[in-house]
């Protein structure tokens, strides 16, 4: 069984891949997917530490996160759909209404 370090490396890689996706994707759906990856990296960490300490609360938190992620994706996709209906695009470069 691989040690804690391996889990953490995987989680870190997953998280960085998610950040990379969020930063580089121009498609709003792609950005949402990146966020999803980041959240799951955190889940891996939670589970790994729960296992290390033998404490089920960490598992509980992972379940929580999964539930909240579902809700977040639902809201995020809904927003993306509304934006598409209004602006006829979901290209993040062109969504700059807050430009100063």
């Amino acid at each position, binding site marked *: 069984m691989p040690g804690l370090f391996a889990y953490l490396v995987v989680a870190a890689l997953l998280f960085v891949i998610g*950040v990379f996706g*969020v930063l580089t994707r121009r498609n709003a759906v792609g*950005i949402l997917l990146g966020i999803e990856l980041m959240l799951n990296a955190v889940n891996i960490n939670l589970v790994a530490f729960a296992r290390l300490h033998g404490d089920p609360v960490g598992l509980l938190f992972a379940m929580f996160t999964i539930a909240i992620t579902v809700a977040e994706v639902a809201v995020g996709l809904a927003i993306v759909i509304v934006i598409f209906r209004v602006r006829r695009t979901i290209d*993040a470069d062109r*969504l*700059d*209404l*807050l*430009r*100063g």
Partner: protein
Amino acid sequence: MASALIVLALPFGAFLLLALVPPLRRRGTVAGWLSILAMAGAFAAALSTWLGDARGSVVVPWLPGDGGPMATVGLLVDGLSAPMLVLVTLVSLLVQIYSLAYLHDEPAPSLGRYYVYQSLFAFSMLGLVLSPTYLQMFVFWELVGLCSYLLIGFWYTRPAAARAAVKAFWTTKLGDLGFIAGIVMLWSATGTFEFDALFRMAKDQTLPVDGLATIMFLIYLGAVGKSAQFPLHVWLPDAMEGPTPVSALIHAATMVTAGVFLVARSEPLFVLVPGVLALIATVGALTALLAATMACVESDIKRVLAYSTVSQLGYMMAAAGAGASEAGFFHLLTHGVFKALLFLGAGAVIHAVGTNDIFRMGGLWRVMPQTGLVFIVGTLALAGVWPLAGFFSKEEVLAGVWAGGRPGVFVVLAVTALLTAFYMFRVVFITFFGHGHPHGEAHPHDPPWLMRGPLWLLAILTVAIGLRFALGGAGEHHPPVWLTALSLALAGTGIALAWAMYKARWLPVEVVQRPLAPIEFLARRRYFLDAIYGAIYRGALLGFSRLVGFVDRYLVDGLLNVASAWSLRAGDVLRRIQTGQAQDYVYGVAFGVLVLLAWAQWWRMP
């Protein structure tokens, strides 16, 4: 005492009534008659005060202080204030009657306003005369100055009048600053404002004052401003922008003599400081001479009279400075009568002709003989011709100055006497006997009786006072015969010179003018005093304004402008980092997290 209080109360009552009851004031003539009625009562009371033998003072506490009142108010009737009361009430009364006709073209509310001012002025002047303390005198002194301002600027829509009013106010205030400073210094040294107490101390040589000379000099400054002494005389000629009756009352007969009155009143203190007295005499003589030369080249009839007033005030001051303040006061009284007469006469002429310029008059003797006659009576009195009032007072002034041991002042005053006769008869010959210039549309004629009455009364008084002294001898003072001869000769020479130059015309004006060209040049430009004051005023005020403007514009505003400019620029720079794109913000967050991580890992290492 009661009658003195009535003298004071009647004009004040009239003032309150007119000022507080607008319907009364707006009905101009009614207001006028009310004021005149009050003035007539005051005159009667003043006469009874003068003739009665109630002399002395009444004071009541005013400002409370530790151990007795700090200041008192009251009434003081003595040999100085009693005749002054009669003069003020008499001239006020006649001027108010005269004004009713002189200002009949004035709209009713405006006329009412005029009488409000007149009543207030009479009250203030009488209060000044009756003051038993310096403080009360100062209060009324300022009130009188206020009335002068209001009346000079009576036609306030005329820019010249408004300017003249402000100028008079400012110039006299300059002297008043000295006056109040002197009073306060005197009070802080002695603890009292009362004349009685101060004079008693002065007599017993127990005045606990260091630097009395400074104090008396400061008090004298007040008199310099009010009595138009050199170098603060510049306001008086400009004050002629007011209605002519105002000039007669305030700027000839009464208010301007307040300075002389002050010096005469304070004589027991002034005699302790011979240096200041010498200054008073010298400045008085200088004023008399300068004003007389300016009068010789002036072509505005009222301004000639104004300069002659300044000149005569110089006479009075010189007498007071030479230690003959009763002679100066005597001249004040007679001068008040005949100068009022001259001004009212000039007013009648101006009223008839519609101009102040003597060279646009001429030949008025034929059309207004009564005015001409009374004007000549006044002129003779001012020139100092026997047996009119002016002769005796002027002679007494000259005798007093001579006896006071000031030959320099005496010579200057003697020359001034000659000039006085000359410039007054210059006006008479040009105005009344010159070639009949076309008077345009106007048909000059003698004024209505409302104006003629006061004129005749003053003329008769001028003659009567003179005759009284001619028959009864000039009191206990018997001036030397050579002095009488000299003053008559001076007056005669002046008149003859004016006659030769302006009536007979066998002495061309140019012949006299040429050798005197430098003086004429200076006199025509009023010795550049107005220009100098203008320059100082502009230099000081505008210079200071520029400094303030610079500070405001470049320091205060500049600071704010720099702050706002930098805010704008900073905002402009900062605006650019707000791209509105969510991913850029995420970059920021990620970078921030990295920084925090780095900080936590390395910089915070113990």
